[in-house]
């Protein structure tokens, strides 16, 4: 394992220190935790947004803390959900009385830990709502789907809504609207190495890829022969579209998300094909994101995310922060 780290146990805390040291005007850490909040939290009268999960997905989640986006991010160990007490600290630090929305990815660990934190917060009379993201169409049963890159679109759109001063119920409804209308699918060409284990999560031959990978360095739902970028893109886009109800004239946002080690160059090659495919179907792409938004350490691969836009989501996304 070759990593620029000092020791497996300090990774997350040193990353948090680095984030705050690099952006002291924007960010602040809560002592003795791996919670990062806006420097000016709590923002009076504003609904607060919290996201989080295991570390190793950077820039998610702490990279989204800031004006017009999240109020706090909670970082667990690498690929391990944070504990309820850390989430509670975040909730207490950002609540201004207007309530708190937790943005949770649908993994057993995240769901349970955030749920316990919500219970603890309610016991302290803080109003907490949750939206659970399940955008990964690689899993066929919609209830079991993981939350992946689409989560970052919830950060942006719900973040813009909260910044406008909308109420907790309104922000929750908007966030839920994004969650209901966003779908993703990923492919990986090479695994990543979780620092604590020191070994790659799996091995792939030179001509193999994993289709339907999540964001925790796991294998996907199927191992396949490596294909060219256009064919891979077609497969991912088709899978995503099969699960959506888009018509000729539908408006969408598109995200091509790198898993960590894939050069931006390749992501743009994928974006090119994805945009072509959507255009061929009469779908209007109003906004395209290409880059790393939700990574899996240094995994090689990418995911395609499509969000069906209604007028409100479109307005919030185009006017908001990225």
């Amino acid at each position: 394992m070759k990593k620029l780290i000092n020791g497996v146990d300090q990774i997350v805390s040193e990353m948090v220190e680095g984030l705050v040291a690099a952006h002291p005007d924007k960010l602040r850490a809560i002592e003795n935790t791996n919670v990062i909040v806006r420097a000016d939290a709590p923002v009076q009268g504003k609904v607060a947004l919290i996201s989080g999960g295991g570390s190793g997905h950077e820039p998610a989640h702490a990279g989204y803390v800031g004006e017009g986006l999240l109020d706090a991010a909670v970082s667990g160990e690498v690929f391990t959900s944070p504990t309820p007490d850390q989430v509670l600290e975040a909730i207490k630090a950002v609540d201004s009385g207007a309530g708190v929305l937790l943005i949770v990815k649908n993994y057993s660990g995240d769901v349970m830990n955030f749920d316990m934190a919500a219970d603890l917060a309610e016991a302290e009379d803080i109003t907490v709502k949750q939206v659970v993201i399940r955008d990964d169409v690689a899993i066929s049963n919609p209830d079991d789907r993981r939350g992946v890159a689409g989560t970052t679109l919830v950060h942006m759109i719900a973040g813009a809504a909260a910044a406008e001063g909308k109420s907790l119920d309104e922000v929750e409804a908007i966030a839920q609207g994004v969650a209901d209308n966003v779908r993703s699918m990923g492919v990986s060409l090479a695994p990543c190495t979780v620092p604590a284990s020191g070994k790659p999560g799996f091995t792939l031959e030179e001509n193999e890829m994993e289709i339907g990978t999540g964001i925790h360095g796991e294998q996907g739902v199927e191992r396949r022969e490596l294909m060219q970028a256009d064919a891979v893109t077609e497969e991912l886009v088709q899978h995503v579209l099969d699960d959506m109800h888009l018509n000729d004239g539908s408006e969408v946002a598109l995200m091509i998300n790198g898993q960590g080690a894939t050069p931006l160059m390749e992501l743009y090659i994928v974006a090119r094909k994805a945009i072509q495919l959507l255009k061929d179907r009469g779908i209007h792409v109003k906004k395209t994101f290409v880059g790393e938004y939700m990574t899996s350490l240094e995994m090689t691969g990418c995911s395609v995310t499509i969000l069906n836009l209604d007028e409100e989501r479109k307005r919030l996304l185009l006017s908001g922060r990225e």
Partner: protein
Amino acid sequence: MELSAAVMKQWALRINEKMQEHKDKLSELDQAIGDGDHGHNMARGFQEAANKVNDSSYDDIGTMYKDIASTLISKVGGASGPLYGTAFLKAANAWKGRDVLDSEAFTEGIEAAVGGIETRGKASFGDKTMLDVWIPVRDEMKERGVDTEQANKTAAKEAEATIDRVAKKGRASYLGERSKGHMDPGAFSSQLVFEALAEVYKEGAS
């Protein structure tokens, strides 16, 4: 059958020793069908729990296990943190105010623990999770009273039995049929829990 506060303390300490010893194996099992952190999660959490237990003195088994549970909840994270944490928290409630547990009282705790895992994780027997071990152990205790040696054997057998199953809950479920052929890591850590119980009971009795 009786379990004193001293033996119950030993149980927690022994679980920790087992998790440290099998840390790599647990993570390897998790790497095959999950994300490879189960050993680290267990080792980190039970080490903290052992420290807590060592630093305090308890007459009340309920208080002791409440502390263990809180430590697990706040130090483990992932799926296993809330699940083991809830399990021991529910058991602690059942053991509140007691400085010794007879077979019935211990069983009540295990029953409550299983209930906690089920409520929290919404899994059932056969889903290839830790419950695949806990449920048969509980059933046997309810039926025949606590026999720690038997519980140990059942746990080992049931952990083994997860190998052939397809995971229905947790990360391993994302693999579908590909999850077959690997033991569930949480089932193996649960086996270690009951292995520790058999050992400390035997030592305490002798």
